[in-house]
């Protein structure tokens, strides 16, 4: 083990600064995520804020979906390192997501989820 430590010594000190900067990124990302979460909750607490109240009820849903996607993206890209890591990993994960969205949206369309509103069975 000691031998290993020596072997890795230089590489580690070299990577030190990089890790520190990552830590900064992590904290900033987390603050951003927290703010978005607050905004999400705000759509419930104050539904009449003009930012998401477009007068037709669609605004809240759309804003929530957008905020959800942004949170999803940043957790994946930063915390799960997809931004820094081998592209193959991101491809694998995105394949799963795209496939899931594709087939399940098709199911929801077949159930007239988007057209029948509450009358859908």
């Amino acid at each position, binding site marked *: 083990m000691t031998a290993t430590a020596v072997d890795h010594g230089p590489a580690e000190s070299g990577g030190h600064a990089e890790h520190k900067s990552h830590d900064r990124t992590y904290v900033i990302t987390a603050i951003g995520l927290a703010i978005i979460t607050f905004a999400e909750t705000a759509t419930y607490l104050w539904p009449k804020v003009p930012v998401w109240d477009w007068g037709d009820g669609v605004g809240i849903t759309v804003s929530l979906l957008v905020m959800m996607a942004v949170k999803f993206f940043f957790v994946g890209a930063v915390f799960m390192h997809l931004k820094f890591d081998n592209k193959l990993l991101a491809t694998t994960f995105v394949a799963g997501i795209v*496939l899931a969205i594709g087939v399940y949206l098709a199911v929801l369309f077949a*159930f007239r989820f988007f057209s029948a509103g509450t009358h859908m069975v």
Partner: protein
Amino acid sequence: MADDTAMLALPAAERPRDLALGVFTRPRSKTGWRSWVNTVDHKKIGIMYGVSALVFLLIGGFEALLIRAQLWSPRNSLLSADQYNQVYTMHGTTMVFLVVMPIGAAFANYLMPLQIGARDVAFPRLNAFSFWCFLGGGIFLNSSWLLGGGADGGWFMYAPNSGVIYSPSHGIDFWNLGLIIAGIASLVGSVNLITTVINMRAPGMSLMKMPIFTWMTLVTQFLLLFAVPVITVAQFLLMFDRLFNANFFNVAQGANPLLWQHLFWIFGHPEVYLMILPAFGIVSDILPVFSRKPIFGYTFIVFSGVAIGFMGWGVWAHHMFVSGIGPVSVMVFSLTTMFIAVPTGVKILNWTATMVGGKLKFDTPMLFSIGLITMFTIGGLSGVSHSIAPADTQQTDTYYIVAHFHYVLFGGAFFGFVGGLYFWFPKAFGVLLNETLGKFNFWFMLIGFNLTFGPMHILGMQGMSRRIYTYDEGFGFTFWNRLATVGAFTLGSSILFLIFNIIYSVRRAKKLGLECPNDPWDARTLEWIAPNPTPEWNFDPIPTVTRVDDFWYRKYEETADHRLVRVATADEVVQHSNGAGVHLPSPSYWPLITAFGIPILCYGLIFTLWLALVGGLLIVAGLYGWALEPPDDPDAGHDHHDDHHGDAGGEHAGEPTEAEAGSEAKEMETVG
């Protein structure tokens, strides 16, 4: 969750351990039944998949013969309606999940690592776990026969017919849980095999140099990876409905039974492609050998396989044209279904073009491959006819559908598998199957097959319904049903004949001391560089690959005027080393113990929760034992390699070429 917790494995033995958790001595046996129970060798696991699938084939085949015997004459009373429901449900389920899928897994496990020049899969113990889960699931499912009767809702188990009200026996619970267990096996296996293909190829083996069977395995495993969770969701919902009174398919509470159909077929359609693609891969590797030509359009074959994998996700609702999904859905899925015929057609074209102008040799594997091409084409054409929704409305739930999917799954997948068995049997067991018996076997099977399923087209057009246990005299069904029954028994005999050929050839080889040549077919792909039967260590050293069909081009070279000349005999090319110094993964009991806990847990869910607790504890104990057991046994006899872990680099410094040194470094990480 098995794989999650197990990830916390300890670093491989900083200090040697004799007893894993103080319970078991680390298994060491290399022979006898113990060597099979604790094995993590992909070859042994592949063989076990094959043998288990063969046993399930006999069970499923027996069920098929019961169906055919019942339909021999009008108003027959061999089976009651209820028994008939159970028999056809279990026939379908067994054949799909316990025969065709595991045979695909058998070939994938045995061949894929050999074809990419690896010594084992990425996670050998997980591989063993997959197999034991599959076997446990299969036995669990079939144990329902002894515990109150089999499932009776058809292999697609449509809601709400699968609810407790309509099926009060435990059959469907066994079906549900048994397939969830088998699903764990498939999911874990797919993660394992994909990782192996992506990460563990021999030096020089780029993706576009891989043998086509390996490519098709990769596509198949991706389909499994994404399709299995979908059916798992559906089965969990059904399980909660049946065991805990949830309302997912309870129409009285406003549930929509179509949810089941959607979830089932989102899984179900990729499922049919993942059953056929391994056979496509097998045929694509066999045809060039017996045509003595490289495969026509390697890239097209590969990408049409990948295309089938993608498009297979967009056609599921063609199983639901009559369920009232609405005109838009019907139109969309009609079109996608027509489109998916294109990549399949590309493959058939490529196979035909491979044979055109080749020096064809009609050995048994070749005959079965041609059988696949022709029979699958018939099944494919009847399949395209389903994509036209008005025609499909006529065909739905008739024997025409039964004829169609048997032509693609038996005439397609199974013919390919039998061809593969004849082709690679010497690779696995060092014995050539008898050629005369083999050819007889082929014609026997082909005639039996067409006699069984050919008449079903006509029966379907005449309007005979599937899943109905009898018919009346004046319907005009009797003659064609008799023909199909005669065919079914012929087909059943041909399977027994195949088993006879195996026993006969092995016995004869043993008695006469026949040595199997190392390259009996003048083969092309990498797995034949290893001698027959494949030694425990697969390759020593790991070969460096330079082109597609690498083995072939080590034997033959192209002259300036494009003629092939032999430059080496097979025996010169095949490796003859004794594997000294090769470091292999150590056997382990923990995968078996962990997998053993799962069926116990499931029996508990059905009968008494106390038993579930026992099963759960066993799983947890198995996982922790597994995680705490070093993946590699430092005390096992690895010849002289033993005490040199620390300076392995130094040891390999003496290797003659860089490529080989690289391959030794690769060998280390096969020991996961």
